[in-house]
């Protein structure tokens, strides 16, 4: 692997940058692999990287039907936090957060993880109760999260409107200082490059069209648009398309895929120092390194694979932003896009073995998968390598829906009285 550094840029710059090599090879599929990952987003590429780097499985391939990082990895608002309520979730997301902290150095690729702080606003008494419950649970789990008064929130985020003249005045906020953002493309590319360097084949424009099982029902091969690939282990990490891929193996999952839109403003000089989220007003916002305000909100109401949604989602997102940050009313939307988010009934992911031997699935991240990328990939690699879940992802199995052991982050946050 060509090492990246300021010095290497300087040296190669002197010769017109002619000597850079591809960040990863354009591999063609081989006839057989020890393991195949379906889905070339951050989670899938990361899984391949950890399979190779932690578990020594290097004869593996990542199959991507389009281009690497072109799904939700390249379409999200890049928020990173770990202040989840339930112990299981906190453990998973905090595992990820720890990996984020030195991911750039580990991958030798600047993923621009920036702990700018994630502030979640409370607008009513119920919000305050929910926020406090999170803060206490997080503290006891070793996850940083603290309560801010409105004045402290304003100090942390000067553009915030904490006056009484808005519909839902800010009563306070929960702040996770280690939360922040990272550069989404860099995560996919950094993992791709690092995995490639360990021998992983990254195969773009390769769509899975079927699975072959042996007499015992175990996976023995993957059929693809670029030919048959023999393998005994397949990890599916296909986000919004997971249901469709798993159907090829006759595995049904408790998933529904919804359109999720996000948008950015035109770039401006630094105007917004952190990430702010509001569940009550339904919006979240941060500013990218490029200067764009990055804004997201809820999903469209219906399942869809179109990667687009309605105008009303934008009007409702932006009226919320303008209410909280009235000085941004004259800012202009530069670009809007849509992703497909796969959602489980309890809004928590599935990272698990499946009823089919040799077939593993990592899905159901809903609107929040980016932040988990390194942790998700790390424990999924463990699950595939050992045919047993890592203790962190053991609760995130499929059977929990049958048995009622839900990890219901949504219900815990959003019931009004």
């Amino acid at each position, binding site marked *: 692997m060509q090492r990246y550094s300021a010095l290497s840029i300087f040296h190669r710059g002197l010769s017109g940058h002619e000597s850079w090599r591809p960040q990863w090879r354009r591999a063609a599929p081989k006839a057989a692999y020890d393991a195949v990952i379906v889905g070339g987003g951050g989670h899938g590429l990361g899984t391949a990287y950890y399979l190779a780097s932690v578990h020594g499985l290097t004869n593996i391939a990542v199959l991507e039907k389009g281009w690497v990082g072109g799904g939700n990895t390249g379409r999200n608002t890049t928020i990173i936090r770990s202040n989840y309520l339930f112990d299981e979730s906190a453990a998973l997301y905090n595992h990820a957060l720890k990996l984020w902290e030195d991911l750039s150095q580990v991958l030798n690729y600047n993923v621009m993880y920036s702990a700018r702080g994630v502030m979640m606003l409370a607008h009513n008494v119920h919000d305050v109760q929910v926020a406090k419950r999170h803060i206490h649970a997080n503290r006891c789990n070793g996850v940083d999260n603290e309560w801010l008064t409105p004045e402290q929130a304003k100090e942390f985020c000067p553009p915030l409107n904490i006056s009484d003249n808005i519909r839902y005045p800010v009563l306070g906020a929960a702040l996770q200082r280690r939360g922040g953002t990272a550069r989404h493309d860099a995560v996919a590319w950094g993992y791709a490059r690092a995995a490639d360097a360990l021998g992983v084949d990254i195969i773009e424009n390769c769509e899975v069209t079927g699975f072959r099982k042996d007499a015992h029902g175990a996976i023995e091969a993957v059929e693809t648009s670029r030919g048959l690939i023999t393998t005994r282990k397949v990890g599916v990490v296909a986000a919004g398309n997971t249901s469709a891929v798993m159907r090829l193996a006759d595995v049904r999952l*408790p998933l529904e895929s919804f359109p999720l839109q996000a948008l950015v403003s035109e770039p401006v000089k630094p105007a917004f120092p952190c990430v702010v989220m509001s569940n009550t007003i339904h919006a979240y916002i941060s500013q990218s390194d490029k200067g764009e305000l990055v804004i997201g909100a809820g999903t469209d*109401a219906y*399942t869809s694979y*179109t990667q687009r949604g309605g105008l009303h989602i934008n009007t409702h997102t932006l009226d919320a932003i303008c209410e909280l940050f009235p000085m941004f009313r004259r800012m202009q939307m530069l670009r809007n896009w849509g992703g497909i988010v796969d959602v489980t009934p309890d809004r928590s992911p599935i990272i698990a073995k499946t009823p089919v031997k040799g077939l593993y699935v990592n899905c159901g991240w809903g609107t929040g998968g980016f932040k988990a990328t390194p942790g998700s990939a790390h424990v999924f690699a463990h699950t595939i390598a050992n045919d047993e879940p890592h203790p962190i992802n053991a609760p995130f199995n499929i059977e929990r829906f049958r048995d009622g052991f839900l990890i219901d982050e949504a219900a815990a946050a959003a019931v009004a009285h």
Partner: protein
Amino acid sequence: MLQIQCPYCGVRPESEFAYGGEAHIARPTDPSTLNDDQWAEFLYMRTNTKGVHAERWRHARGCNRFFNALRDTTSDRFLAFYRTGEPRPVLAGGKP
């Protein structure tokens, strides 16, 4: 915002409707006879079709009626609307 044809009121904007999830998942008449797997199937398993999807809508801010629709989830184009209780229409070309 989608345009949705309520079988009672005609074409209306999506904002008048509530999405009701996948259609034709009837509540078992006697849930006590189901094992946990079967019950979980009813509760949670969805086809999440990439293609023609039978789904429920309720004209919640209109005539208040539930009805069903066939929609291609790869284009969001509606292919049929029909009333609750009616069988899923067979589309021209035999596509279910």
